C-alpha cells in the first residue's frame, strides 16, 4: 500500500495543480451548459456526469482514496450508496420522476 509519504513530493504538486485545473475547466463547462439554451433538453444527464467527474477527481486524488486501502473505499462508497439510494427512493415516492 503506497502512501505518498514515500513518493517524491514534487511530481505530486504538479499532479495536484493539473487536477485543480481540470476541476476549474469542468466547472466552467457546467456553467456554460447552463447558459446554452440548446442543451437544455439534455442538461440533467450532462450536468450530473460532470458533477460526478468533479466529485470523483477530488475524492480519488485530493482525498487520496485511489492510493489508500480498499477498506476506506468500501467505507466511503457504502455510505454514499445508501445515501444516494435513499435520495432516489424518496424522490420516487414523492413522484418527482413521474411527469
Amino acid at each position, binding site marked *: 500500500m503506497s502512501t505518498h509519504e514515500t513518493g517524491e513530493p514534487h511530481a505530486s504538486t504538479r499532479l495536484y495543480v493539473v487536477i485543480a485545473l481540470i476541476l476549474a475547466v469542468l466547472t466552467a463547462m457546467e456553467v456554460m451548459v447552463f447558459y446554452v439554451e440548446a442543451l437544455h433538453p439534455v442538461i440533467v444527464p450532462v450536468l450530473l456526469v460532470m458533477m460526478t467527474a468533479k466529485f470523483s477527481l477530488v475524492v480519488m486524488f*485530493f482525498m487520496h482514496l485511489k492510493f489508500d486501502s480498499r477498506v476506506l473505499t468500501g467505507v466511503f462508497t457504502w455510505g454514499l450508496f445508501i*445515501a444516494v439510494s435513499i435520495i432516489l427512493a424518496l424522490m420516487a415516492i414523492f413522484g418527482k420522476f413521474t411527469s
Partner: protein
Amino acid sequence: MDASATGIPNRKLGMWTFIGSECMLFGTLIATYLIYRGRNLVGPYPDELLNIPFITVTTFVLLMSSLMMVLALSAVERGDRAKSMVFLSLTALFGLIFLGGQFFEFSHFVREGLPLSRNLFSSTFFVLTGTHGGHVAVGVVWLGTLLVRAAGGKLDRSHAETVEIAGLYWHFVDVVWIVLFTLIYLLQ
C-alpha cells in the same frame, strides 16, 4: 500505537467512517430540497434570486482551497514549515472568502423578501447551504488551530497524519459543495 490490523491509522479510518455517516446527513438534506423543489405556493422563487455568476466565483474559490490544502499537506510532509504555513493560511483564507460570499448571498436574499420562514425554498435552501456553511466554518477554525501549531513549530513531519485528517474533512466539505452547486444552482 502498534500497527492496526488493516495498516490504516485509527484516526484516518475514523474520519472516513465519519465522512460516510455525513454522506447520509447531506443526502437527507439534499433529498428534502429536491422533493420540495417547485412546490412553493408563494414567491420569491429560486430562478428570481439565484445569481449564477456570483456563485460560480465562490465555487471556484472553494475548489482552489482544496488545492491549497493538498499543497499544505505536501509541505508538512516535506517538513517545509514556511510553505506549510503559507498554504494553510491560503486554504483558510479561501474558506473565509467562500463564507463571506455565502453571507452576502443570504443577506441579499433576505433583503429581496426571502427570510428563513418565507416558503419551502427559503426553508430548505437556507438549512441545506447553512449546514454546509457551518461545516466550512468548523474547517476554517480547525485550519486556524493547525496554523497556530505550525507557527509554534509543533507541526513537523511527524504530524502529517493530523494535517491529513483535517485535509480529508476539508475536501469532503468541498465535494459536498460540488454536488450542491450543480443540484441547486444549475439544475433549477
